[in-house]
């Protein structure tokens, strides 16, 4: 799995960080998403998929191999 984020679309809701803190973080000043791990290990894939689904800005893109 390869993860991408669109910082322009991000609305700083932080839902992704709640679900997958190993993969996502937020910038201190404005809360915009920071991608910590573009190729997370399989154990995290479900949490990452869930993050992409709940992201209210559809700012998380997944490419699954």
């Amino acid at each position, binding site marked *: 799995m390869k993860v991408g984020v669109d910082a322009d679309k991000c609305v*700083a*809701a932080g839902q992704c960080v709640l679900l997958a803190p190993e993969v996502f973080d*937020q910038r201190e000043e*404005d*809360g915009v998403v920071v991608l910590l791990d573009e190729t997370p290990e399989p154990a995290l894939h479900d949490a990452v998929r869930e993050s992409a689904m709940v992201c209210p800005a*559809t700012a998380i893109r997944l490419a699954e191999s």
Partner: protein
Amino acid sequence: MNRIVIVGASAGGLATAEALRRQGYGSTITLVGDEPRLPYDRPPLSKQLLCGQWTPDRLALRPDANIDALGLELRLGVRATGLDTARQVVTLADDTSLDYDALVVATGVRARRLPDTEGVAGVHSLRTLPDALALKERLRPGRHLVIVGAGFVGAEVAATARALGVRVTLLESGPVPLALAVGVEAGRFMTRLHHEHGVTIHTGAAVTEILRTGGGLAGVRLADGTVVLADDVLVAIGSVPNTEWLAGSNLTVHNGLLCDEYSAAAPGVYGVGDVACWRNTLFHTWMRIEHRTNAAEQGMAVARNLLGQQRPFAPVPYFWSDQYDTKFQAYGHLHDHDEALVLDADLPGRQLLVAYRKDDRLVGVLAAGKSPKLLRAWRALIAAATPWTTAITTTAA
């Protein structure tokens, strides 16, 4: 289970379909939507789309290829008109019908209108993409937009319109905008923000008449006789759940489709998103939430429950609102609060932090102009049903 029918093809309906597939449900999913287009995102309608920063193609909730990959039977551009829960059949406006083994009701809400304004030129609502495009056409520098209702939709449109050079008057029926939803202090903070950006705000204002001249709009008359001239009027006075098609179905409709703590309205029938009023056991109360994140979360929860997991849907609700350069964010259940305690109010710096108490526990928090990360600690306290005094002393430390 051979066929799950999801009525409503917006964020909630799509999330349900995706979650069903993700959890291995391989049989038919029929997704019915009254709008002709693939599911799109609504929050940008009052902001990026309205100001022209985004074109409509950016609103797609998923790329077309992802929708294709879900293998859905799409019935777009057709409204559901009836439901027979005994025979398990949904009837549609084109006189076809759909049998189902399980049903998801995700028909959302529509904008509430002022009486006798349907189709009146210059009177707008904002719920759909065509609504937003029609309003966008009219927002030109120097024109005057009157917004009836200073809730979040009205306030966001006011901010967008000001950025486009439009003159804006906000009409609020209560003494302070948003006071019922988020408390007087947060409402005053927002009022000040709009004043600083040149918005005229009338409180205690009830519209009694839409004034017209020669086929065009002239303005509105208020109950106290005041006439406010306008080129356009946006009516943003809340919404109405789309439940008419459920009449006679034996499902209970009361402020939306009434659901239990699993989001079930009846055996094999679930509610998702803005239309669903369900029992949130975290707050021991019924909730109907019209926020974007709830639609997705509830869709995922319903997919799990439909496939047999039976877990209560008990989230900490979340919403945000962007107005000018200020971001409002809130967690929890704010609108029934007994107390709204202002922990930090820096008006010139456009920062605000308010905690909400119901009985003896912390139930919500709202921040404006703060680092969004700050709110996560608060969210955890709300999710843990932290006693009020503990919460206030913990966070003050």
